[in-house]
């Protein structure tokens, strides 16, 4: 893409986050230009009829950050991204808590939407995180969804927008 390099940030953290602050930081990184598309994922309250009392999020330190940075670079190569950020929490989380935030700033709203959804789809299938749900019946590792793999696959080959 022409112009200055997009600002890209990745954070893997135990702490909760504030979506307004993250969005302000994203905008500063884009010289206060561009519209923002953002996605926030939360811990489910139940999954496949099982009540979720809490969730343990494990990851592969080092590989996680690198794989997300690569996902962001792929997004910036496909769309005119001004800035992109991913924050992903790890450790123990309660039902309804925020897990992940993805924000993309672009002068073109369709690019902001597409890049944000692309990043989420790849995050779901490429970044080494694993969710374990804890409930009254004990622990249960969340299964990967075939659906997520096919969502990610649809970005391959086709046109950029």
């Amino acid at each position, binding site marked *: 893409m022409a112009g200055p390099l997009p600002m890209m940030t990745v954070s893997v953290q135990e702490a909760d986050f504030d979506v307004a602050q993250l969005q302000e930081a994203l905008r500063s990184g884009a010289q206060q230009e561009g519209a923002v598309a953002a996605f926030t*994922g939360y811990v489910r309250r139940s999954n496949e009829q099982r009540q979720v009392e809490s969730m343990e*999020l*494990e*990851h*592969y330190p*080092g*590989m996680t950050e*690198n*794989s997300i940075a690569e996902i962001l670079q792929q997004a910036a190569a496909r769309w005119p991204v001004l800035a992109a950020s991913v924050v*992903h929490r790890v450790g123990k989380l309660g039902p309804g808590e925020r*897990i*992940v935030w993805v924000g993309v700033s672009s002068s073109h709203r369709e690019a902001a939407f597409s890049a944000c959804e692309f990043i*989420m789809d790849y*995050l*779901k*299938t*490429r*970044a*080494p*995180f*694993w*969710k*374990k749900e804890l409930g009254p019946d004990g622990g249960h*590792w*969340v*299964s*990967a969804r075939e659906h997520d793999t096919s969502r990610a696959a649809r970005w391959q080959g086709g046109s950029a927008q």
Partner: protein
Amino acid sequence: MLKVLFFARIKEQLDCGALELEWQDAVADLDGLQEQLCAAHGDQWREVLGQDNMIRAVNQTVVDGNRALRDGDEVAFFPPVTGG
């Protein structure tokens, strides 16, 4: 020396998160390393590491199929990811 890591369900099933292995010709590729681990640890490891959807990464990059290894490499075994 090879560093070998296990994550999530695999780590629990093996009751092992990480181990180190002296460098030797028998572990000069991924399949050799996996066979070496199974031979050393028994049927439980053979069953767990032989699961269909096992993902293997070398130096934090996912690898499809076999791949040569070098002294000092970091190898990881993990199930399909479920973040986001």
